[in-house]
């Protein structure tokens, strides 16, 4: 890696993040810039796409081509960008509200479509930017001013859903573990197809309890698998704090399909002749 032309700082812009001191997203920013340096891609050939929320501010903090779009639509936007510019390395950055709530349907179909890009979700189980509402991954008994007595709702299971929907690479990391997070992001980017990395990233302001994640997360005791059935069984017994790569699939990534018949301009024109 020492021979690389780029260093992590080459991917960082001079814009000061808006995040609260102690936010897990600082660590994610460090991990992705380190991963970019390890990947040794020129910043001009990388696109960082996001939606809305604290985590979605990340594109402007990098030196790549960035798109901070609207709430929940980052995967849809990135899909169009990637299929029309396959030469670019595309990272899609999201949060649990942006990615799993308003962007939930796009998540399912991005997994299905298996376009070669990497989806990184910073999950803090709360809406931070709008000041502390429960999110799809919030525990049912999380008691707060905005969810008195807890929501009582079953939390969204991102890894299960990604696996069931056809994502080709599924991993979970903890933001504080920069070394492993960096490594996993590199693996995710290098793996063909749609790669999904869920990063537990504490919100110290609205979820101070998440400071405890640092001591609670643990590396998964079993190796990654390419067998979806095994991966599914593992998730069923997961405590939500296992980190590491869970699944590395073998599906071929999205490619444009050209029907044989369509290869003949004359036949095609005849079909549409009116």
């Amino acid at each position, binding site marked *: 890696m020492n021979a690389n032309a780029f260093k992590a700082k080459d991917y960082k812009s001079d814009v000061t993040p808006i995040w609260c001191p102690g936010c897990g997203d600082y660590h994610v920013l460090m991990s992705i810039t380190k991963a970019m340096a390890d990947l040794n891609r020129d910043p001009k050939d990388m696109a*960082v796409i996001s939606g809305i929320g604290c985590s979605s501010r990340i594109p*402007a903090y990098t030196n790549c081509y960035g798109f901070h779009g609207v709430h929940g639509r980052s995967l849809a936007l990135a899909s169009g960008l990637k299929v029309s510019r396959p030469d670019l390395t595309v990272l899609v950055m999201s949060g649990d509200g942006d990615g799993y709530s308003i962007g939930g349907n796009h998540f399912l179909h991005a997994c299905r479509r298996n376009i070669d890009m990497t989806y990184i979700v910073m999950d803090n189980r709360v809406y931070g930017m709008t000041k502390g509402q429960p999110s799809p991954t919030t525990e049912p008994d999380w008691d707060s001013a905005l969810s008195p007595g807890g929501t009582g709702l079953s939390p969204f299971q991102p890894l299960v859903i990604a696996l069931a929907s056809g994502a080709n690479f599924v991993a979970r990391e903890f933001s504080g573990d920069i070394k492993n997070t960096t490594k996993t992001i590199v693996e995710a980017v290098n793996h063909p197809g749609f790669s999904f990395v869920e990063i537990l990233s504490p919100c110290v302001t609205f979820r101070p309890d998440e400071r405890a994640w640092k001591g609670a997360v643990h590396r998964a005791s079993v190796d990654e698998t390419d067998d979806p059935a095994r991966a599914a069984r593992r998730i069923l017994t997961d405590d939500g704090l296992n980190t590491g790569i869970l699944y590395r699939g073998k599906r071929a990534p999205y490619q444009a399909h050209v029907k044989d018949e369509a290869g003949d301009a004359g036949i*095609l024109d005849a079909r549409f002749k009116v």
Partner: protein
Amino acid sequence: MEQPRVGTDIQFAICGSAGDGTIAAGDIMKRAAALMGFKVIAFDIYPPEIRGFGKCISRIRISDAQTYSLKRHSDVLISLNDAHAIPHVGEVRDFGAVLFEDNSIAELPEGGHISAHIRAAQVPYGFGIREISEKATGLARSRNIAALGYAAGLFNMPPGIFHQIIAEKFAKKPRAVTEDNTRAFDAGVEAAARVFKLDDVSVGRPLSAASGADAVMMTGNGAIARGFLEAGIQAYFGYPITPASSIMERMAAALPREGGRFLQTEDEISAIAATLGAGYAGARAATATSGPGLALMTEMMGLGVMAEVPFVVAVSQRGGPSTGLPTKTEQSDLNLAVYGGSGDAQRIVLAPTNVEGCYRCAGMAFEIAETYQTPVVLLVDLYLSNRFETVIPPRKNIFAPKPRKTPKMGKGEEYQRFRLTESGVSPRSIPGEAGLTHTVTGLEHDEIGHPSDRLHNEMNAKRHHKLLPATHFPGLTTQKRFGDSGKVDVGLLGWGSTFGEILETLYTAQGQDIRVAVMKVVMLSPLPVDEIAAFMDDCTHVLVPELNFEGQFANMISGATGRPVTRLTQTTGAPMLVDDILAELHRLIDSPAPPPTSSHRTAEGVRA
């Protein structure tokens, strides 16, 4: 009585039940006429059910000069099913012909036969349609083609051309199908040769055989697809919706073959988001939808305006609100197309008025979007999307993209994606270009693109002002005046498909010694206000016919110019009738000075 305006100007209406081959017969007629070198406009109406026995009508207008709509009266009605055709006898003009089955095998109730409904001034041609088909082929299935042959024989249309079209149409079927249909056609021609021709309908020779040589028959949607392809579209994302889906079907087949990308997305939000993403990445990208889809897309229209990303959205309107009338035409998504979204989000909206306009606007839309770094909406409607017209495309592709120019930076100069320039257009870089990386955002931003509300007013002004020169975009007709010059009694302002009926109204009124002019407005945002205002200054009355309830275009015009207008609106799901526009025109001429405020009338004509 109305006489044909040019040498040949004849309109056939073929009416039958689903399964009678009504649309197929119309299809052969319009393709044969186009091959002969005539200009053709055709529009089919069929029931919304995929399978059923509803009424089908195919109307085909054949002329040797460019026309812009169907005629108010048909010259020939061919009935393949009397129950369905009887209500349409009235649309046949005096001395026009009605062709029908005179050898019915079923007992009909009183008034059940079409002959009882034909006016004395109309010319009846009863003949044994079924018998001709059965004698020629052994089956009654070729009734439609036998009737078509009879019509062709009656008006001396060359059978050879029909033979050619029949062979093309059934090329994929067993040879016997072509042979049977050709025999049925010829038997029809022969039967017609034996009758005495009473009427004044005539199909002459096309003005120039060469005029038809390069003519291509297209639907509005087909023309949009062709324009996109000639403009080098690289990516298309869509979600199925009537009546826009046929654009997507063409893209699905053509784009991957030409190295482009096509995706059917999970919804319209994703379709336009992907289009925007591809546009941001430098690709020529488009999507197409109808009103309900556009409603979902407004969020991304706003982002496209804010992030200054070029892309194209074709919108084929249908009846609304909500799911509305999916298979009926309407012009009620104008407000949504022009204003839809949060904030002040001005974008470019083009509304072609005929099929050739669809082709030209679609061909130029990307260049316009790139020039002004903005979304461009191509606004049509079902009537325009699905109707057929002959178009003569230029021999040379005039829409091919020009090579992109990467912004040049001075030494030590910081790249500012949203630099405030005199024109309002800023240097735009795309991913992959060195030294020009930046992040765009849906948040208000400074010149670099960093989130900031410091320059909100200046940025709003930039986003609006940069579009204004588009009203004079080179090579694009954004508005055009027709009819009498100078002061006129009534001026009609029209947009979209309704302009065809408005122009037809003009031609009719000019024969009635009324001073009248019309203006078509193709660019609906930004509006060519100066030209519209100058036109209105010439008019004692201004009439704005359109297919929506509120008079959305009239509101827009009236608001932009501060001048009173008279609205004429209709939401029957059908195109406006020339007779209704004409009636309102006469009412206005008989009215004194224009009212101090705008007035609003609803056309009552209904045409199935």
